[in-house]
C-alpha cells in the first residue's frame, strides 16, 4: 500500500500523517489522529455530521481524500472549538437553548455555525438556515439551532 506524508495544522497543533492518498479524511481524523468528534452518518456527503473546517470553510470529511489536503492546511474539528472564543460561546448557547437532542448531528452542525458567524457575524434567519442546510438533524426541527445561532451572533466577538 502506497502512502503519502502530509503535515497539517489540526486544531492549532501541527500533525504529520503518513496515509494512503485516497484514505478518507474522516478516517484519518478518527482512526489515525484519535479525534472521534466528527461522526460518520451517511458516508455520502448528504448528512453533514462529518463536517470539519478546512481553512475555515465547512466541508464533509467523508468525501475528501486525505492526499488532497495540502501541507499547511488548517483543519478544525469539533474538538478544536473550545480553543476559540466564538467556539466556547457556541457551546454555551447550544446548551442554553437546548439545541442538541440525540446530539449525533451536533459536531458538524456547530462547526457550520462557527464558519457562518466567522464570515458573517450578523446573519438573518434565511442565511442561518442556508448555512446549516447541509447538516441534517432528525430531532430538533432546527428551530432551537437557529435560535442558538441568533443568540451567539448577539454576543459574537467583535459584535458589541
Amino acid at each position, binding site marked *: 500500500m502506497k502512502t503519502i506524508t502530509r503535515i497539517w495544522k489540526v486544531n492549532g497543533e501541527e500533525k504529520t500523517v503518513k496515509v494512503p492518498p*485516497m484514505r*478518507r479524511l474522516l478516517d484519518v481524523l478518527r482512526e489515525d489522529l484519535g479525534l472521534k468528534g466528527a461522526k460518520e452518518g451517511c458516508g455520502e*456527503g448528504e448528512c453533514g455530521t462529518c463536517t470539519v473546517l478546512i481553512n475555515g470553510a465547512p466541508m*464533509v470529511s467523508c468525501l475528501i*481524500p486525505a492526499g488532497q489536503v495540502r501541507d499547511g492546511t488548517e483543519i478544525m474539528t469539533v474538538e478544536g472549538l473550545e480553543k476559540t472564543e466564538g467556539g466556547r460561546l457556541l457551546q454555551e448557547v447550544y446548551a442554553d437553548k437546548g439545541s442538541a437532542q440525540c446530539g449525533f448531528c451536533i459536531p458538524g452542525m456547530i462547526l457550520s455555525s462557527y464558519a457562518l458567524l466567522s464570515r458573517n457575524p450578523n446573519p438573518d434567519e434565511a442565511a442561518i438556515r*442556508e448555512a446549516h442546510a447541509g447538516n441534517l438533524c432528525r430531532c430538533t426541527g432546527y428551530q432551537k439551532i437557529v435560535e442558538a445561532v441568533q443568540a451567539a451572533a448577539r454576543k459574537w466577538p467583535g459584535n458589541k
Partner: protein
Amino acid sequence: MKFLEDMDCAFPKNLQEALKLMADEKSRGRPIAGGTDLMVQWSSGVLPMPERAIDLSGLPELKGVSENTDSVVIGAAVTHAEMRRSPIVQVHLPSLAQAAATIGGAQIQARGTIAGSVANASPAGDLGPSLLITNGRVVVASKAGEREIELAKFFLGYRKIDLQPDELIVRFILPKIHAGCRESFRKLGPRAAQAISKVMGSYRGSAKGKEVKDFAVALGSVAPIPIRLPEFEQWIVGKEIGKKVLDEAEQRVAAMIKPIDDIRSTAEYRQWVSGRIVRGFLEELVAE
C-alpha cells in the same frame, strides 16, 4: 471488495504534468477534483474503482474566473462556492450563479467543481441548463493541444461526454448576458438543499413590452442530457405574452419533452412541472 485505501493517486503540480500523465495509458488515472460524486460512486460500487486517480484540485491553470468583452471564462476546477460568490458570474451569468447556489449544501459547494459536474454528466446535473442557454463552449486539452467544443454538442448521451481518455476539461467560455436581457434558474426537488432535482430549468431572453424578442430555454432531469427546446424557442419569439399564449406555451413544453419515471419523480409530473417552469420564465421575462 476493493477499498479506497488501495487506490493510488498522482498529484501533478501543473497542467502540463497532468496532461503528460494522461497521455500514457500506464500513468493515466481517473481525474478527480472535488470528489463529491466520485468518492460516493466508488465507495458505493456504482463505479468501479480505478487503479489510480489524478488529482486536479491543485492545478493553478484550472482555477479562476475572468472576463473579456463578450464572455466569462471559468476554470475547470472553480468550485460552486466560488461561482456563486464571484461578482463576475453574478452580474454576467446570473442563472449559473443561482444554480451553483442550489447544489447540495455549503459543504458540497465548497468542494464540487464546474468541470466535475459536467464530466459526471448526470441527467440531473444542476449546471447543465444554465450552461446551455449561454451558447457557450468548453475547452479540453491533451498533450497534443487544445480543442474547443460547443457545450450543446459536448453532452452526447446518458453519462457520456465528448472527451477522449487522454483529455482533460480545462475551461469554459460562456457568453455574457446582454444588456436588456434577463435570465434565471429554477429547480424543483423534495427539499431546498441536499436534494437531487426532479426538474430544473434556465432561460435567457429579452422582451419589448409584452413581446418576446429573444428566448433561449433549457431543461434538466427530463432527458438523458440537459436539453434546449429549439422548436419552442422559435415559436415563442414574436408572441405577445398573455394568458392564451402562456396556456399554450405550457402545453407545448409538456408535449415536447419525453421524461421518464424514476425514483425521484414520474414522467407525467415532470412534463407538467416543466410547462409550469417555462410559463413562470415567460411571466418573469415580460414583468415590469
